[in-house]
């Protein structure tokens, strides 16, 4: 069965794309969750639809036009966050729905476009992943991995406590923009596999699942990427075997892992609480006695 899958050219491309999505989406998603901006990926996904429509209209690869438009949208969202005095949520709503409406309109204006084409970008469609798409996905994924791992300490600090990070002299605005741009790039990496409407789920759910059983950021990161990779691979294979849509399958699998780890976490947390309690008590008393 596996050799059967691997010998098909389109499945090879699909699996490469799936693994890269499984790695990159949680890798950037963890910083969005840390900043409590879990839904940012969803917003970028909506904006990217205009980019897809633009690609059809210009008859070029929608991956690249979506990347450009998603980056522009993410940068605007970040600017709204800085300068937005009142009703930033309204401005964001305009951006989201404007992006979605723009996509639908543009794709219908395009000579080769139809809502059926759009649908493959909205919900993912592995069978239509071209060689050109794979090249683009590999390049974009390399960028995402380089940023999220190479700058993890800096991004951690900025996402944990922005005010403090500024006082360490880090270029906080540049790093925030980098997170926004990287998230936008990830959205377009993931768009062919899980689709624009479900991409945010893959940024958030593996992280949420991982943090049920981890205590540190590093472990959460590694575990989230592992969960992401496993569910995208399993979902892709399942999609081929049972002819089910890949995006929906992957997301439901991720949610299943979340539920499983949550159930596992309760007894684990209880045991840790017991261990931590005795340790905590020692700790509260000892230094006072020593120093005061």
């Amino acid at each position: 069965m596996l050799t059967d899958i691997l010998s098909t050219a389109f499945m090879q491309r699909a699996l490469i794309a799936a693994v890269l999505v499984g790695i990159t989406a949680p890798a950037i998603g963890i910083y969005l969750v840390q900043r409590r901006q879990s839904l940012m990926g969803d917003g970028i996904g909506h904006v990217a639809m205009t980019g897809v429509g633009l690609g059809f209209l210009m008859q070029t690869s929608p991956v690249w036009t979506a990347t450009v438009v998603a980056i522009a949208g993410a940068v605007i969202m970040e600017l709204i966050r800085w300068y937005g005095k009142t009703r930033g949520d309204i401005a964001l709503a305009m951006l989201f729905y404007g992006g979605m409406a723009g996509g639908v309109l543009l794709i219908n204006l395009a000579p080769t476009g139809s809502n059926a084409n759009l649908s493959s970008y909205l919900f993912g469609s592995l069978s239509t992943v071209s060689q050109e798409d794979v090249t683009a996905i590999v390049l974009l994924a390399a960028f995402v991995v380089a940023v999220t791992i190479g700058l993890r300490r800096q991004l951690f600090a900025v996402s944990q406590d922005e005010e403090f990070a500024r006082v360490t002299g880090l270029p906080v605005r540049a790093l925030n923009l980098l997170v926004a741009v990287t998230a936008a790039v990830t959205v377009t990496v993931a768009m062919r596999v899980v689709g624009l409407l479900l991409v945010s789920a893959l940024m958030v759910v593996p992280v949420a699942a991982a943090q049920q059983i981890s205590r540190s950021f590093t472990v959460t990161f590694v575990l989230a990427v592992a969960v992401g990779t496993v569910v995208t691979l399993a979902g892709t294979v399942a999609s081929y075997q049972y002819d089910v849509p890949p995006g929906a399958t992957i997301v439901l699998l991720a949610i299943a892992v979340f539920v499983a780890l949550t159930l596992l976490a309760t007894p684990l947390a209880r045991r840790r609480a017991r261990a931590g309690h005795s340790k905590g008590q020692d700790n509260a008393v000892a230094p006072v006695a020593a120093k005061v």
Partner: protein
Amino acid sequence: MHNDAVISLSAATAVLGSRPVLRGIDLAVQRGEVVALLGANGSGKSTAVRSVIGQVPLTGGSVELFGTPLKRFKQWARVGYVPQRTTAAGGVPATIREVVSSGRLSRTRLGLMSKTDKAAVEKAIALVGLADRAKDSVSALSGGQHQRVLIARALASEPELLIMDEPMAGVDLASQEILAATLREQVAAGVSVLLVLHELGPLEPLIDRTVVLRDGLVTYDGPVTAGEALPGHDPHHLTKEDCHPHAAPAAASPVPTGLLT
């Protein structure tokens, strides 16, 4: 005298929304000095501290850190900042060591952590008495322990100046004593301190000078006098509006900028 100031805020004005919060204050901290900034809620003490580190832009006046205008100041490793927080946790689990490590970024910037950097982080964690819990998640800590983590994070860069915004808020007695002991060591080692406090509490013996703010103006700048007069109580130079109802009414009237220094 001015040359030896680690912090120098002069004729500072700032606005939040459309409300003037600082109406022209002078505030200097000399090398090795421990200055407490006191005042009621809304008096502008937090804004004053946040303007010193550039979080709140001034609409007038100037700030200097170590004799350098804030705009040109780059040596952030010399400053340890403890923001006003009730928690050290973010949206994702993180250990005490991970959070404290980010305090070292002012030295490592975009580079990697060396052995020296890692040792400094461990030392900072030990200073606040959390060495045996370094691997624990910060979300499992009590309020006082959160504050200790935030202070360890500020100490990780081995700063010459500590700026703390209400470090004792929500801190249990045991943690207050540990924080006081930590601060005592830092002061003994020559570190200068500017801290916002609601009341002097266990830190009182450490404090060289208090500055009292009211409605965005300095109403008192001088030695801690309350210690002798009213042991265990708030300083008598705070008025009813400034602090507690039972405080003695010996307040100076608000002094506009420039007249104190």
